Each structure stands twice: as C-alpha cells, then as structure tokens.
C-alpha cells in the first residue's frame, strides 16, 4: 500500500517509492539517505505540527511535516 510518511503510523516499515517536490528538497533528502527503494521505519510522529521521525540506514532523521507529506512509501505488511 502506498502512503506518505505522515500517513504511516509509528512502527510501520516500508520502502521509499517516490519523492515529490522540487530539486532542492530532493537534494537535501538524498544527502541524508532518502533514495527511492531505501527501507525506512517510522519511529515517532510528534503531532500538532511537529516533525516525523524515521529510521533510515540505522540513523534517526527528523523531518518537518510538510516535507514528510511529500515522501511516498510503499508499506510492507508486518511479519
């Protein structure tokens, strides 16, 4: 199932399907390891406009909500 990072719930895993948004944003995301096909796990979601925290390459990354909404994830069923 395809969802954005904001739509995922904490603990859910998946692969990055597509990065929407302009070149600048994509570049910033690539630098931190957000490439299509990369596995991610959502760690936490600080609601009320706070950032989303995901695990990429065994590092935690905090992403603002606006950006997180532009990252499409192909989620996997939990084993």
């Amino acid at each position: 199932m395809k969802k954005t990072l904001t739509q995922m719930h904490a603990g859910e895993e998946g692969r990055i399907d597509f990065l929407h948004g302009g070149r600048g944003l994509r570049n910033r995301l690539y630098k931190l390891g957000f490439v299509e096909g990369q596995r991610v796990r959502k760690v936490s979601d600080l609601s009320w406009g706070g950032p989303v925290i995901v695990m990429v390459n065994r590092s935690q990354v905090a992403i603002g909500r606006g950006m997180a909404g532009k990252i499409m994830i192909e989620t996997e069923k939990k084993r």
Partner: protein
Amino acid sequence: MRKKTSRIDNKIDILLVGQPNVGKSVLFSRLTGIKTVVSNYSGTTVAFARGKMRWNGTDFTVVDAPGTYSLEPLDDASWVTVDLIDDARRIINVVDASHLERHLPLTMEVLAQNKPTILVLNMSDEARYRGITIDAEKLSHKLGVPVIPIVARSGEGVKKMISTLFTLQIQKGEEEKDERGHPGHHPHLFRKTKRKHIDDHSHLDRRKIWEEIGNIVSDVQTLKHHHKSFAERMEELTVHPLWGSLFALIVLFLSFSLIRLIGEFLISGGVGIIGEPWMELPFGTELLFENLLKPLLKELSLVLGEKGFLHRLLIGTLIEGEIDFSQSFGILTSGLFIPLAAVLPYLVSFYLVLSLLEDVGYLPRLAVFMDSLMHRIGLHGYAIIPTLLSLGCNVPGIMATRILETKRQRFITATLISIAVPCAALQAMIVALVGDRGALPLAIVYGTLLLVWIVLGIILRFVAKGFKPELLIEIPPYRLPDLNTLLSKLWMRLLSFFKEALPIIIGTVLVVNILYQFQLFDLLARLTEPLVTRMWGMPKEAIVPLFVGILRKDVAMGMFIPLQLTTKQLVVASVVLAMFFPCLATFVILFRELGIKEGLKSTGIMFLTVFIAGSALNLTL
C-alpha cells in the same frame, strides 16, 4: 551567491574531510594538540580549523574541513571543503563505522577528486557495540584506497593511520596525477563533481551510486543480530510523542536545578543548601574573598589612607568604614569579585551541564520537541541550540546560529538572543539581587524576558522576509560522554571567558571609577532623564548602570546596589538592562554575523522593544 573562501597560500599537508558529527574535530585535536569545541550534533565546526602536526621531526599542516554531506555546491560548507581539497596534498576521509552506507556517498565524491586519500572508519568501538563488523581489507580493495578502523576518542588505530598516510605518494607534477589513490573500479560513476551545476540527470547518477554503495556495504559489512541496547531503546523512547515530552520536561527541570545547585555550591560552599559550610574551610568563592582577600585589602586600604585617588581606584569607596565587595567598586574589590566570585561559579555549572547534554546527544532531540512551538515564531526546532548556548554567553550563541540554514532564521534567532536571552553572568547577578527580594519579582523578570522572546518572535515571523525551511536533521545516537572531551570543552569555554570577558570587566570597573571621579555621569543623567524617570520610573542615577551595561551587564547590575531601588524599580531595571544594548562583545559578533544592514535592523528592533517593554512593565506593576 558564493563567497570565495580566503585563498590559502600555503599548501595543506593533511586535510580531514567528512560528514557532520563523525568526530573529525576529535581526530584533529589528537593530531595537532589543538583543542576545538566538539559536540554530539551536526555542525559544530562551522569554519575550518588549522593546526600543525609533528611527525618524524617535520611539521605538517593539518586542516579540519567543515562537516559536509556532499561536495556538490549546495551550501557554504561544501564550497569551503571543495576549495580546501584543491589545496590539499593528502586527504583523510573520516566516516562513521556504524553508519557506513550513509557516509560512502561523500567518500565516492572525495575519491573522484584524485588526491592521495585514506579512508578512516571512526567510532569503530561504537560499531562493535552495535554488532557491526566491517572487513576493512575488503573495503580497501573495493575502493582502491587504504582503510583504517580507528577510535579517535581513545587514540586506538591513530598511529597506524598516520604511518599509512605517509606511505601515500604525493603528486609532484600533473602527469603523475592519476597514478595513485584514484578509485580504480568505477570511474564512470565517480566523475569530478566539482563546480558542476546540478541538473536533473545527477539524480539518476545518484541512484546508481547509492545502488553501488548498497552492494559494497552488503559485501564488507556483517550485522550481528543483537538485542536492542539500552542506548538504542532510549533513542526511541525519548522521541516518543508522550514519553519524550515528559522526558524533555524532566531533563530541563533537572538541568536548571543542577545548574543552580552547583553554582550556589561553588559560591557559598554549601551554606544555604546544606546549612553549614562544608567543613570548616573557607570553601566557596564568596568565602574565599571574605576570609582571604579582605584582610589583605584592609591592610592596603590603611596604607593608602582610606581615601584619595589611588584608594578609590584600587579599593573604591568604603561602605560604613568597611570594604564591600559588591558596592565598593574598586579594581581589586568589585573588579575581581564580580567576575571571579559571582559570575564564574555559575558559568562553570552552566557549561558543565550544557556540555553534558551536548555530548550525550540530547540537544537535537530537544530541538525535535521544540519544533512545533518554534515554528510559531518563524523558526524551526534547531534554533533552540544557539538559544540555549546563549544562556551561557551570547557571543558563542550568536556564532552558533550558523548551524541554521537561512539568513532569515539566523536574523530572527540572533535578534531574539541579543534582546531577550540573558547570559549567565547577568543571570548570576539578577538571581543574587532580584532573588533577594523574593521569588515573585524574579519570576516577573524571567517571565517578561520569555514573553518578549515569544511575542517578538511572532512579530518577526510575519515581518522578516525569506524562505521558511522545515526541520530536516539527523539525530545522533546517544553516546557515553567522554570525561576528557567534556572537561577540555569546559576549560576552553572558561578560558575564552578569562581571555575576553575578564579584561573587559576589570577595564569597565576602571572606566566607571574614573568617570565617577570626574563626575561625567551627571551630564549623561541629565540628558536622558525624561525617558528614564518618566517612562521607566527609575531614579535618574539609574542611567549610569544602563550605559555601563553596554560594556558589561554583570558590572552594571552591581551598580544598581547603591541606588536603593524599590523592588518594582529593580525589576524594571533588570529587564531593561537585559534587553537594552547587548554587551559590546555581543554587539560586535552580531554585526559580524549578520552584516551591517541586518545588524542595524536588529539594533533598531532592540531600541523599540526595550522602550515598549520597560514602559509597559513600569505602568502595569
């Protein structure tokens, strides 16, 4: 627009290149013996550091490049690094052994620069702890450069790294350029990225590079399945929406309590906390001054005849026939007492606690929790780090605004700091003086400053033009702080207080003393009387400390003592002093960081805010 890095005329023998927070600075101080501020979050090295290393009787220039994720010209850090690489003879590429896949993209770009390079896997102890094993030899074979695992903090592997480094051939002429240290295997992927415009093709290249890296990593790295360590569990728990917020509140509360406790303890040696002074010794800075220095100064005072120009200069005025360290205002009395007995203890305790939070890696997590609040004042959560640093001293705080991405964020953060964030020196005096009148007046002072910070932030959010970026940060793993790093950082921060603030404090006391003796302040007081008395409700003499505040705020605060202010006047005075004109050092840094135009804007905002806040406080209390 790109600013050209000041051209480096002499060559760099060894250049350290790596992503933020991989421990380049630790390695740098290990090589050169030069201490730089090291923290567990990205972007501590905003400019580059240069030092000398001695090896086999020869001096080598070592430069620590700013941490950068890429050599593509996306930000200042990468520009600077590209320029530095141009001038470097040998490169040490430092990567985090526990996050190899994240660091290799930069490595690929560095290797494409065709310079003699070695790859250093730092923090290999942490990798071991997290169950990660890397086959260095295999990796070396794949990349075509030597790969050395080290632990920069303890020095493990550093000797081997240096000797390997010196086996590399340095290019003498252009023709030898491609003989050594270039990536042998995939030249088509790693073309020189230098000064190349980024177009949409590069993202295809990048996907290929990431794929390639994925293959390399899965080849050389084995992950042992291990139970989540305590650190890893805490890493998740402390960003949990509910538990994390609770944790943040507890950490903040404990930090401030601890700062106060340690500070008080250093000043009074436990009097007021435990009740009795610790043992019967004159422990605590205040007691040291009273018991050891005062008898000596009394002698001096008698020798000088208890009055006259020299007496006033050195000892100051006697209060009821006695030396009073906070009121006498001589160079040897207040000039030494304010910085050493009243301010230094709080500075020590503040920086101790802050450095601990920094090194454990908690600050970026705090930034994450502050993010949604900070957005309401036009900033994102990371701006909390320079702001917290400023509670110690505004100067390094404003310098740390460089970790923020945009000019607009830097402007808002620096302006708010210079107006509404009191430094530890000033706070030590405010707590001593206003706290003496009770908890409520103290709460009003701090509450007003906080309110100004928030309201001004909200206003600036709408007024300041520019792009509003969102938070995108890597959160570092928790690390056990290293005592040596911690203490050396504390020492460096205190040293800069001694070097920069101490002479200014004593100089200020001297200048104030002389101006008093020639009664120049009376003129000043008469000129500004309407504002000070009518709008702020203070006696006209209070203008003198306010002007002295331009030099040093802690000294200025001490000058309120003889004025016998009412509690209300003291509260207004403290707030106005805290907001009015940042001290000289902060002012210089503010202009240096923001530029003249933005600096003037910031100053204008300051005058307007202090006028409004002072008057409003006077009218409502």
